[in-house]
């Protein structure tokens, strides 16, 4: 081995990537930057608005202070409604999500048609945002909390159904076979063999989704589906920024508390 060969094989300075790897990496970076630049360029953005954005934001903050605490009484009722919408929506989800989950899990479904139906319901439910579901249900049931409850339920079905279906597919098949060997009916197999195995996952998902739903239900009012969003929207339109700050503080409190409750409960279950 000549000195030159030795130098290339054992270089003085350690490099993690070969020059070729480095080159492809930079090509990727360049591509990503190009996509971002093109995206910003193609968007119809008036950049002048961004120049005085900080002035506008500061102006908003000044007007939001001090909060008008006398408004808190009205906010509390509305906040309670928001929590109700999230909770009832989550409970309503259970009745649809679990049948769908059993259909969408390969080992508990009846045949490939029912499997496809189950999967389709779960995918369709997840693809549409809660706010869009709310638009649809407001058109059906009229403005009010009921539309909100249905919107929350419609979006949660896909979430809970998908996680539960995945849990069902991962169960210990031995327990199911043992129950089948006793001559149990299909329903009994599901009830005794499958359900107890996925229950912990179900409880965990329900609490987790409830916490997400609290956050989602704070904006349903913007499309007329009940909850604190209605107050937020009307206070904003009346330029009552001192009321807006009370609403924002209360939303913050409720979301943080629900997140804490959900995390504590999940820690105790699992």
């Amino acid at each position, binding site marked *: 081995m000549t000195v030159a060969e030795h130098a290339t094989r054992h270089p003085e300075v350690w490099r993690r990537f070969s020059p070729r790897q480095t080159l492809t990496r930079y090509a990727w970076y360049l591509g990503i930057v190009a996509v971002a630049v093109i995206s910003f360029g193609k968007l119809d*953005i008036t950049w002048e608005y961004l120049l005085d954005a900080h002035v506008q934001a500061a102006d908003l903050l000044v007007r939001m202070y001090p909060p008008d605490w006398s408004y808190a009484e009205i906010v509390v009722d509305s906040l309670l*409604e928001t929590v109700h919408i999230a909770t009832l929506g989550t409970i309503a989800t259970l009745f649809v999500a679990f049948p769908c989950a059993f259909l969408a899990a390969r080992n508990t479904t009846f045949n490939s048609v029912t499997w496809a139906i189950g999967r389709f319901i779960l995918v369709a439910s997840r693809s549409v945002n809660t706010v869009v579901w709310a638009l649809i249900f407001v058109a059906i049931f*009229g403005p009010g909390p*009921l539309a909100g409850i249905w919107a929350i339920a419609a979006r949660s079905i896909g979430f809970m159904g998908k996680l539960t279906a995945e849990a069902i597919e991962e169960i210990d098949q031995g327990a199911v076979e043992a129950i089948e060997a006793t001559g149990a009916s299909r329903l009994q197999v599901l009830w005794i063999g499958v359900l107890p195995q996925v229950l912990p996952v179900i409880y965990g998902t329900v609490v987790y989704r409830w916490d997400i739903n609290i956050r989602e239900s*704070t*904006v349903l009012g913007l499309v007329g589906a009940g909850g604190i969003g209605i107050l937020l929207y009307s206070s*904003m339109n009346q330029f009552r920024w001192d009321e807006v700050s009370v609403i924002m503080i209360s939303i913050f409190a409720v979301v943080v508390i629900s997140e804490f409750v959900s995390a504590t409960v999940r820690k105790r279950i699992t």
Partner: protein
Amino acid sequence: MTAPTTWSPPRLISNPAYRHAATFAVIAYVVWSLGTLEIDWGRVSQGLPRAANMFARMVPPDFGRWELLGTQLLESVLMAFAASFVGVILAVPIGLCAAGNVAPKPIYLAARLVIILSRTFHEIIWAIFFVKIVGFGALAGVLTLIIASTSFLSKMLAEDIENMNPGQVEAVRATGASFPKILIYAITPQVLPRYLGVSIYRLDANIRHSTVVGVVGAGGIGQVLAASFSRYDYDFSLAILISIIALVFLGEIFSNWVRGKFR
């Protein structure tokens, strides 16, 4: 000695008294909360015929205004790309500051506060604020998605840094490396692959969210959807919904494909 002849699966709450109390509490809650909600049952009872009517008017979907549909859908996608890019970059310093094992306590607390504040409020709330600040249009939407992606990505990054193997950091530090060098040679190689994966996931999530921020005027397909609903233009609404579902589906496939490549 007699063996039990029946068996029932173990329950979450083993004490039957507590279990029945819990069931009762749930039922009582449902009754009470439904009672306090102001539901106009007269209006609700019209729901089924209304829904039937709505679906009748939705079918067949009207793709006649496909040009408007296309431009707005494209705007949503561009908003998602632009916001993801900025978010991925902004989240690096914030995520670093929010990692307890890297950042000093005051910086750590400040960064965590920023993350909590931006995560607590729903995207739609941020969107209304940005519409008030910079006016209607895509800029408000991009800013909203930037906030949402930055808070999500920086939280994930901070958790990854906190969970990384400290051995490598110590090894690099033992060579006398400065903090930037530790960052490049010990921290980045450990967290980068996962961060890229999470970024791609976030791009997918941004595509989903970019289709709704328009409902409050922050650009993208959402504003066309909201307008079509308020004009009872249901056949166009269905066309938009189908397009959104298709777009979200494509986004998910793309994100899974890219994340598969990284692994």
